[in-house]
């Protein structure tokens, strides 16, 4: 799993999702050729062509009209999902309906939005609206036995990439549970019900592809688990009010609405106020956000910087917020490398007045709500200092003292950022230990890597502390083992994962 995550991290979310959905489409065509699904090959091709062209035309027209930043791959994904859940057809009226639903799903994104971001999963909204008008109903035709294995494999890839495994697993378990409860109430329990749920139902496609849509899911694993459970349970309750009956897509809309207060609630536009150099190749950008952001210290945003001729790594990145949630302005600390990506090159040209966007808020690298009840040991590797800057700044703003030791590991002196600020946190109860791999002469800090002896010298009570590790993946993994060997239970170690490309 870890290995797979590593591979997937090299690709952007859009690349992974488009590839997986593309494989589903090809597989569907193959099944049709062999004759294992009843939809004729020509019908599949026609429907695919109609959905794709209707979606793309609407995308370009609306993007031109509204001048809002829009990613064409996001629309391609919408089109592929629509194709996979609405029954393929080759009749003229059927194709006209498919085209209408396709246009609606893109258009509704621009209509049902708040602060420039859609409130609902776009495909689910289009499906429910089409149903309300009696136009078309999502049949989830991919939910068949022959599709199930590939839906599971593709689903695992998507869920690993977007780091939503707990949420999706809980969602699937909750679905099974509700089917069990419901059939117990009706007095008709049989294994066939579950076999049918796991082979010929929308379950896999719905949970792995639809529910994982990031902008409408809450930030934080715990909240996501509740979200998954809610969707799993609700989607398996059959109810109908008038002509509106429950369906996966309706469930998703209800869930989107319930957790909406927990998302970023909008697409942020951030204007750059100043750029400072805080260490070698390391820059701090202060932004004024277009609306106040509610986040927990240590969480990250998905930043989008549309720029001319982006490279394969795309126009989006995950960066941790480095400032306190109490401050109105948002600070971002970024380290540039010699030959950076087009994204970072573009960021390097930033000046007062430059604009960047951010949409998705997520992350679990946060301190417990009752922060003063625990003792802490923080380890930051290089630019991994950013979540701690946010957390310590927040504690400072709240004037809340804590008992913490921060081991700040860098290659050389020049890489150390915010040394003075960190020194000031001593008043809060935070003791900073600088560790340099390549120390200058007369250096009175620590040299090399963290060792058991070093840790025990500064923090003899290391086993009682909550450990927070943030830095390059290799360092985080190595130090996690180090702390385990010092007797720290796994549940007391929190690591800041590097989510890879967005």
């Amino acid at each position, binding site marked *: 799993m870890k290995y797979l995550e590593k591979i997937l991290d090299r690709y952007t979310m859009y690349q992974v999702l488009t590839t997986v959905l593309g494989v589903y489409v090809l597989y569907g065509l193959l099944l049709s050729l062999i004759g294992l699904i009843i939809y004729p090959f020509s019908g599949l091709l026609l429907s695919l062509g109609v959905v794709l062209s209707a979606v793309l035309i609407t995308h370009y027209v609306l993007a031109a009209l509204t001048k809002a930043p829009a990613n064409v791959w996001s629309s391609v994904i919408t089109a592929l999902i629509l194709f996979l859940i609405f029954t393929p057809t080759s009749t003229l009226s059927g194709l006209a309906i498919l085209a209408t639903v396709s246009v609606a799903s893109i258009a509704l994104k621009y209509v049902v939005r708040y602060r420039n971001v859609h409130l609902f999963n776009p495909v689910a909204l289009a499906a429910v609206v089409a149903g309300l008008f009696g136009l078309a109903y999502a049949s989830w035709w991919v939910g068949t036995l022959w599709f199930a294995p590939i839906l599971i494999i593709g689903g695992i890839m998507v869920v690993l990439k977007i780091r939503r495994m707990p949420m999706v697993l809980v969602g699937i378990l909750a679905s099974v549970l509700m089917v069990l409860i419901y059939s117990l109430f009706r007095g008709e329990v049989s294994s066939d019900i579950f076999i049918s749920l796991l082979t010929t139902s929308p379950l896999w496609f719905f949970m792995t592809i639809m529910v994982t849509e990031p902008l409408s899911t809450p930030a934080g694993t715990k909240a996501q688990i509740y979200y998954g459970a809610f969707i799993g349970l609700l989607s398996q309750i*059959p109810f109908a009010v008038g002509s509106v009956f429950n369906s996966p897509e309706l469930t998703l809309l209800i869930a989107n609405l319930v957790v909406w207060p927990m998302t970023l609630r909008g697409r942020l536009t951030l204007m750059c106020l100043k750029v400072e150099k805080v260490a070698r190749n390391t820059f701090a950008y202060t932004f004024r956000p277009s609306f106040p952001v509610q986040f927990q210290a240590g969480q990250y945003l998905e930043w989008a910087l549309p720029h001319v001729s982006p490279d394969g790594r795309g126009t989006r990145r995950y960066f941790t917020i480095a400032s306190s949630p109490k401050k109105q302005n948002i600070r971002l600390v970024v380290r540039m490398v010699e030959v950076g990506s087009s994204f970072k090159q573009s960021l390097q040209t930033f000046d007062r007045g430059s604009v960047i966007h951010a949409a998705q808020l997520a992350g679990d690298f946060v301190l417990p709500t009752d922060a003063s009840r625990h003792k802490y040991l923080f380890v930051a590797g290089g630019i991994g200092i950013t979540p701690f800057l946010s957390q310590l700044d927040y504690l400072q703003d709240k004037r809340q003292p804590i008992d913490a030791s921060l081991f700040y590991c860098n290659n050389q002196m020049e890489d150390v950022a915010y040394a003075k600020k960190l020194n000031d946190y001593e008043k809060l109860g935070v003791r900073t230990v600088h560790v340099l791999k390549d120390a200058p002469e007369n250096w009175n800090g620590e040299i090399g890597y963290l060792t058991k002896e070093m840790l025990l010298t500064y923090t003899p009570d290391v086993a009682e502390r909550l450990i927070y590790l943030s830095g390059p993946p290799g360092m985080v993994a190595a130090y996690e083992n180090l702390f385990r060997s010092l007797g720290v239970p796994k549940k007391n170690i929190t690591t800041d994962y590097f989510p890879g490309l967005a």
Partner: protein
Amino acid sequence: MPLPIIITGILILVSTFSYSILTTINRNDEVLSLDETTVKELMPNAMANTMDMDNMGMPMFSDGTYASAVKYEVPYGYIEPMEVSLTFKGGIVTDAGVSFDVVNPVSADYQNAFENYYKGEVVGRSVEDVSLSRMGGASLTNRGFDAALTAIKAEASGDTVPTAEVVPFEQSSPVMDFNVVSSNDIYKDGTYVVENTYYVMPGFNEPMQTTVTLENNVIADAEVRFASRDPHSLTHQRDFSVAYKDEVIGVPLSEASFSRIGRASLTTIGFNDALKEIRLEALES
């Protein structure tokens, strides 16, 4: 996670669940007590041994056109009626036809897709070999077809025709249901009373009592009564009641199958079901 959001979520789950349970299970209980006797009378040879063939296990299928009406269940408790007709000649299927009364609009997509492909899978094949269950995409419709096929094969080989309930959607093997629809049937004059139910969304039943008087194979009089408390159903039943006599009286029983009397499609399905039962009863007695 903020408490108000958790509470909202739990409230939604509890209320939809109880709404769902109230609108399905209680109705079922109410109905069971009402039509228990009818069901028992109608199923004397339920699930009779269809495989007990006379000719050393090699069934012989008589030439002719056969028809079978089945119902299959789709998710959320919808029951989809389906009629299948097959023409056999020398043990080969030479023609096939299906028709549906759409209950759940989602099923219509599957049914359309089914209509586009099934003939190629069925016509020209040996009766013994026909089976659609391996095809994906409209597996529930396929099961309905296979159930009808089983019944037709039983009839064509001169065997006991089995009767059973709806083909449940979670069931992996088809269960049989059967009603003969043939224009040559001679029905006995008299007054027939059938109590049955029809499904309304989502999966609960409305009881109805149908009285039909037959004269010379033609419906001479009809009377339908309901016992619903649900305002939604009541509206449709009222519309049905205003319209049905004009449409029904004077129609030969063998051809009596209606669609959307008084624009009440589900009520009409219930009525059609009652007529099917009356056909059986009028033949047997």
